[in-house]
């Protein structure tokens, strides 16, 4: 275990930033936290989590794939792929760290998404344990430990110090070059924190939410559940849940006519949208009920079915906080899962 006094944390950041861009949660003027680039004087947010997940660093909302330059009738194809520089995303919570498992299985399996892979190869994730989870947190039910976050480096923050432990080669390399601001220490303080976190986790209102009814092999019954009608009834069909979700991975590929050619880019898409994967034959899912069902079936059934039981939700609670009509995966799980976990 390595330790850095909180008084010294800005020096630690400066050290990290010497060789890689450093992104960490910072406070916005409106009271929310966002991942922003650190530079001298930028304060580290105390917020539980950021409004948007750190998914953007690896799978940005908009990303150019290629360009065509036209002049008259001539067309030139331009490769816009660039090698990524190393960067550090600091302060990623356990749930969000887990989301990269979900994304990796999609983007890194064959055929590998080279845009994502390039950024994953160069991004170093420093996680952070949660000391004060919110009522909307339910990572525990997916087997995620808020006190034991994964990542290239795991971190714990106490009243006076930041504790670090490297988990991967990339993580080891990072802490190695930070030795000037880190000192070896015992696990005592971290263990004490883990204990107190465990106590809080036991008090969280959603701690007993059951995943029993979900997972691979449950498709038919759940798909035909009569509860979908009422659950989806008020859904506005906006993309808020999707765009704040750390695990949603759908994107659309679009062409933008610049007047001098075309930029082919991809951008996040939402299965909640009526225009989602619209093709020549029309839409795949015609009603909001079908679209709504798809989103939750995918996270709770289809994804685990195809990925060794790994759920497509990490319980970060963002959609619970942000849905304009407060409909969310928890309400779905309780209704569809037979009201278990009350």
């Amino acid at each position: 275990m390595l330790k850095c006094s909180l008084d010294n944390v800005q020096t630690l950041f400066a050290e990290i930033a010497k060789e890689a861009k450093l992104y960490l949660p910072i406070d916005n003027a409106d009271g929310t936290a966002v991942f922003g680039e650190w530079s001298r004087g930028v304060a580290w947010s105390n917020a539980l989590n950021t409004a948007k997940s750190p998914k953007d660093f690896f799978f940005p909302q908009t990303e150019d794939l290629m360009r065509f330059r036209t002049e008259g009738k001539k067309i030139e194809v331009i490769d816009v792929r660039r090698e990524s520089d190393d960067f550090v995303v600091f302060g990623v919570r356990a749930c969000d760290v887990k989301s990269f498992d979900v994304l990796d299985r999609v983007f890194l399996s064959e055929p590998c998404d080279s845009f994502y892979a390039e950024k994953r190869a160069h991004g170093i994730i420093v996680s952070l344990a949660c000391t004060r989870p919110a009522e909307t947190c339910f990572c525990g039910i997916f087997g995620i430990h808020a006190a034991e976050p994964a990542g290239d480096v795991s971190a714990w923050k106490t009243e006076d110090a930041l504790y670090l432990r490297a988990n991967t080669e990339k993580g080891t390399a990072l802490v190695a070059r930070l030795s000037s601001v880190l000192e070896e220490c015992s696990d005592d303080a971290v263990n004490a924190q883990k204990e107190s976190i465990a106590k809080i986790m036991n008090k969280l209102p959603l701690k007993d939410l059951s995943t029993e009814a979900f997972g691979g092999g449950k498709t038919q019954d759940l798909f035909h559940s009569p509860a979908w009608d009422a659950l989806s009834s008020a859904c506005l069909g906006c993309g808020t849940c999707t765009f704040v979700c750390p695990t949603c991975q759908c994107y659309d590929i679009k062409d933008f006519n610049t007047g001098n050619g075309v930029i082919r880019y991809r951008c996040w898409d939402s299965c909640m949208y009526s225009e989602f994967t619209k093709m020549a034959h029309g839409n795949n899912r015609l009603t909001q009920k079908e679209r709504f069902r798809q989103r939750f079936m995918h996270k709770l059934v289809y994804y685990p079915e195809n990925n060794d039981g790994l759920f497509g939700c990490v319980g970060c609670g963002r959609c619970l906080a942000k849905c304009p009509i407060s409909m969310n995966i928890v309400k779905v799980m309780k209704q569809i899962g037979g009201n278990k976990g009350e």
Partner: protein
Amino acid sequence: MQVTEYKPLIVAFCCNWCSYAGADLAGNNRLAYPADVKIIRVPCSCRVNPTFILRAFQRGADGVIICGCHPGDCHYTSGNYYTRRRMATLFSMLDFLGIERERTRVEWVSAAEGAKFAATMNEFAQKVAALGENKRLEDLRCKK
């Protein structure tokens, strides 16, 4: 040091019945105005959708001017009255967003006002040139 004046790109939407004819008259009378002014013919100024204006800025225009018949003289009786309300509120909104208010303009030019057309374009082009390149409503994707 030689200072070259910025050459702005200006899109002028002109109604077919008055202003486009006014522009033609400016031509007939050989009244010069900058070649940076490019005219798009529309049946009536009320055909100009705010989307067209934003699109012009997106694609690199530095100023957009809408010309129509004088109020009361609209070929379609009321078109320019709608234009007047729409553009007044739209321009006010653009200003609210911090976009330079001198980049947009509405001018009523009759078919007889060739001189006014040329003078308006000269004056507008000069003002926009002084502002320089449109940065606040630009789309960098269109400039690569």
